[in-house]
């Protein structure tokens, strides 16, 4: 995080838009986002800062990139009370987060998991853990290795024994 970016962002911290206070969040890679306090406090971490009066200047969101933070804010916007008219519509919208079709989705969900964990956003965390679990279900050990880019580090003898003793787990 560059000092220039921090200084620049802190000047814009704690602004208000109408009667709604805006919070300034800064991603790990220096991107700055202004978010309504009512929305950002869906994060238990941020809510704690607001309650302790620690959210007056720029809030650094460590370990979360601007790209991921944008997705998190999108999630907050949709989950703000009154943003979506009914539960069904919200679930349909969430489905873009809870299915992992390819490795790019996989890495997005991983990024979101880290962000949801750091910011403590229970709804997002639950959605992403469920997405990873769904992606694992139904895959054989070999398919899991392929999908998660993992090379087996068991030696040949161990691998043979695993396959022999647990044949069902290697069949599809």
């Amino acid at each position, binding site marked *: 995080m560059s000092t220039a970016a921090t200084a620049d962002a802190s000047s814009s911290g704690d602004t208000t838009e109408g009667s709604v206070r805006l919070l300034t969040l800064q991603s790990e*890679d220096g991107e700055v986002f202004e978010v309504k306090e009512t929305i950002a406090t869906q994060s238990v971490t941020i809510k704690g800062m607001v309650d302790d009066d620690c959210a007056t200047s720029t809030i650094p969101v460590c370990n979360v*990139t601007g*790209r*991921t933070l*944008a*997705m998190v804010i*999108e999630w907050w916007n*949709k989950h703000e009370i009154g943003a*979506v*008219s009914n539960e069904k*519509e919200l679930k*349909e*919208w969430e489905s*873009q987060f809870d299915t992992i079709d390819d490795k*790019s989705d996989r*890495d*997005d969900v*991983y*990024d979101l*998991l*880290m962000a949801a*964990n750091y910011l403590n956003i229970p709804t997002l*965390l639950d959605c992403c*853990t*469920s997405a*990873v*679990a769904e992606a*694992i*279900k*139904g*895959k*054989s*050990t070999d398919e*899991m*290795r392929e999908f*998660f*880019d*993992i*090379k*087996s*580090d*068991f030696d040949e003898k161990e691998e043979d024994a*695993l396959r*022999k*003793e*647990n*044949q*069902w*787990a*290697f*069949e*599809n």
Partner: protein
Amino acid sequence: MESISDGVQDKIKLREGTPTRTIKMECLPHEIVFNILSRLPITSLVKIKFVCRAWCDLTLHSHLISSHFLHQIENDPCLILHSDHPIRNQIYFLDLSADVSENDKRVKQFSAPPAMPPEFVIIGSCNGLLCLKGPSPWNKLYIYNPFTRDQLELPGSTLDSDKDQVFEFGFHPSTKEYKVIKIVYDKIDTLKVTNVHILTLGRSSSTWRSIGNLPYRFVHHYSRKAFVNGRFHWVFLPQNLVKIRHDSFLLVSFDLADEKFQEVPKPACPGALEEGISHLAVLGGCLAVAGLALHASIEIYVMKNYNVKESWIKEYSIGRYYFGRDLDENVVVSSRLLIPYLGGPLRVLCLLKNGEILLHYMHRVLVTYNPKSGSFKDLSFPGMMSWFQTFVHVGSLSWIDTATAATGTCTYCQVE
């Protein structure tokens, strides 16, 4: 609708560019990883274990094992199937959990247990562990988790030629101890003294200790027992009773913590426990008695509040079941596994999460009964054998020492 398509637009816009990094599962905080893994059906969790060493290590954490166990007992069970046909002495499983993906909804076969005699019977299942017994005259017992292949050999029990014995395997949630109970009775005359022995697992010097004589008359043919609230339940007769009437039978529990036998209130219907026409079961964590009634229907009494006589209610009345297909008559089963169809051809296995009752017909077919519509449905899965014993099981990576975390609130613990 408009806002939904907006959402999809957002996805495309949001995901321009590539993710910044590839995070490895083992680098995620453990709390998150355990949250993910504990949602998996046992089949996927075992496969995870074989991916690489780091993932294998994750599956060994006792925290994961107990949270996965607690997730599983909220789900439909994993059935353990023991069959002699077509191949002798094979163990299979069928996971009925809703988490199981379509291509895992089939009967799968376990490799032979390590260091187990080629012939064995399954005594029972408790908290994801099976208790197996090797052949006579050694009668060695084994505790075995078929998903981890962990195995523990227990001291054997040789027998005098005029005696026979039954074993039960269970866990008490307050003492957090697994115990095996052994009842040794006279083959010919059950009025003769019947001895009771206990083996506590996990102690360094596991040996059988006698806890005296059974204060009841053992009922030889009453082959169904049930395990509820840390207690085994059997049907016995009063001691020294010679003339047996249809209402003489007693419901008796054995508490695994204080090791005492105690009579439990029985259903109001006087003949409900009669030998040969009824069997005990566990339905949704409650003790139940299933009895044959007129026209081969089955009546199921359930004790809603444990040990409260007034809470026994006749909850289900199941009409006669007709099996629609011809049964394979060429099934060869060894006498070792051949258990007569005491209590009728339909055996109650458990209550499923959708409110249906899972039944086993003639050791041949799995059947569900829907109490609302009163209809039966044959369950057919790829790989199903034509004759098998069924054990309601919790698919888990648990072992004897992980039980302290998993509190044994399992509602399925049941013994054959």
